[in-house]
């Protein structure tokens, strides 16, 4: 069964208690569906993942790229998902 790797960064590691996790993907799903699953699994993440695009509360990368629309981005298995807090700097 295809798997994905989900990586958490910075204080999201404190919210989840892990730096990464693996997940089986039975069938393709939208990125938004995946984030809902993660929100249920890691309840402390829910406030930042819920409506994150409008709130600007997180940066979600799929294989290093930011999907323009999380509801239409498809996760098929084999992807690396990175979940980072919103940030600035440089």
């Amino acid at each position, binding site marked *: 069964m295809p798997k994905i790797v989900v990586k958490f*960064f*910075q204080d999201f590691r404190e919210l989840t208690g892990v730096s990464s996790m693996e997940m089986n993907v039975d069938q393709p799903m939208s990125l938004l569906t995946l984030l809902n699953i993660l929100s249920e699994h890691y309840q402390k993440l829910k406030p930042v993942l819920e409506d994150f695009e409008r709130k600007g509360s997180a940066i979600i990368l799929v294989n290093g*790229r*930011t999907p*323009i629309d999380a509801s239409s981005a498809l996760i098929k298995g084999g992807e690396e998902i990175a979940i*980072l*807090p*919103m940030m600035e*700097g440089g």
Partner: protein
Amino acid sequence: MGKILRINLTDKKVSESSLPEEYVKKFVGGRGLAAKILYDIMKPGIDPLSPENKMVWGVGPLTGLPVQAASSGWVVTTKSPLTNTYFRSRCVSNLGIMLKRAGYDFMIIEGKAEKPTYVYIENGEVEFGDASSLWGTTTDLAQYILKEHILRNPKVETAVIGPAGERLVRYATVQCSTRQLGRGGMGAIMGAKNLKAVAVYGDKPIPIANEELLKELVREQIKQLAAAHGTKRMQRYGTAAIHALINQIGDYPYKNFRETYYPNHEKLNGEGKVRRTIRNAGCPTCMIMCWKFTYVKEGPYAGAWIDGPEYETFWSFGGLLDNPNLDSVIYGNVLADKFGIDTISAGVCIAFAMEAFERGILTTKDTDGMELKWGDEKVIIELIRKISLREGIGDLLAEGVKIASEKLGRGSEEFAMHIKGLELPAYDPRPVKAHGLGMVTSNIGGSHAIGYGTQEVFGLPTRVDRFSLEGKGALTVYNQNRLAWGECCIWCTFPTRSEWHKPDVLTKIVDAATGIDFGGIEGALKIGERIWNLEKAFNVREGFDRRHDTLPARFLKEPIPSGPSAGQIFELEPLLNQYYEARGWDVATGLPTRAKLEELDLKDVADELEKLGKLPY
């Protein structure tokens, strides 16, 4: 309207003039007005390290006011010894506030002192002091002695050069309290003028046109900043917050930009900085508090402390050189600040030397017996010292990577990582097209901080596909104009470009502070565009055109070999065409046109360029 102070170090003449109101309406203040003043007083073709070069120090309309993220920024415009272009360097320290309280918005420094000198400005009085006893001292010692023992006033704000500035290291900095005029070799220009230090004290009140309205607007600004998720992250991590992100998107230059993903990045991420942070701080009146004082408690670098390191230094003394030892990065940062060199340029010069050594172009005969191996922290530390003091191989690297590679030859120009002579920062241009285009077309060379592609990197204020070429010319123009206006005011770049505080509130704050209607957001972007065109015209006068808007061959020929951005190159020509079209410039030459310059109320500039034969039509 404010005043301009003019100081000639050669004959010690001092004069004052008033800022013309029309200049303020067209250029606001800060970078905009400093660029205008510089453009008017500089002749093209002069050597940046000669007495003919001038530095224009300037503050903004919000300097010293109770406004968030704007009160302590100040700028210097000049001609850079690294790039031979127009340059603006930006600093945050109380020196700007003191200059304004002393009665000045701008200060021109020109000429060359006969012997090491400091200049002290106190409420309208200017004194030239003998700095012979300070010459040779590190920046921390120079600031301490000047404030506590020579001027005997700890409230004085200082800007000093270290041994690197005295030795004309082309990327020498000016240290201002714990912050710097970091890029472009401002310290070398002061060194060439025999100017060890500038000190300022002022206690005059700063007028506000509409104080009640300003307070009301700042309350709204505070609400917006408090609600932004990124504010909390900057409070915790400072600018190092973005280390993990830049690596995850495959934009983190590793081993002199050969790769863009650093496998050891976990050892250098923001958490390590948090563990070593002993004190949060920030600019006066700013709630974000992104400064981090870090301290090394144990190990070979125990005792080292710094206001930093910022993200760029994490990278330039860390990941760029394959050095995952954070304590050594902190120690390297300490040395760079004490000697007075730019950590970005220094790191890129060291990376260049390491690649040259790996390729056999440099050998131990050139390096005083040192093996320049990737990741060797002791070598990195020693090279920082050698560059600062121009010792051995450090003398070559102190010239900057462009001149160093031209002197070294043997194909080393291909891996000298700079744009127009300014060493590149911690972003690979290949996988971020607008961000990269911003660096390529920058009027100050390879800077990330003058047209940052926030849309591609953070997805703020809107998400944009970073690999796509579509619309990237216009996006780059927008980002450059937006920042040019922001630096007139002088807003902190981080919350402004990502719109944590909203542009409409910011424009109203500037109007309330000055009593001038600058035309809202549309007016702000027009002012930004005017400034960008004026800065461009400065460079056109110096002989720059489309041929100079380029970047190292590595980015054009070598696809990124692996990681999240594998396969990407920088599509220079189509992106440049888009950019010049969006600017309304001549695409073939990359030069501004009369129609565009006149649209921006810069007819005098168009006339001058025409006389010089540098106006395409």
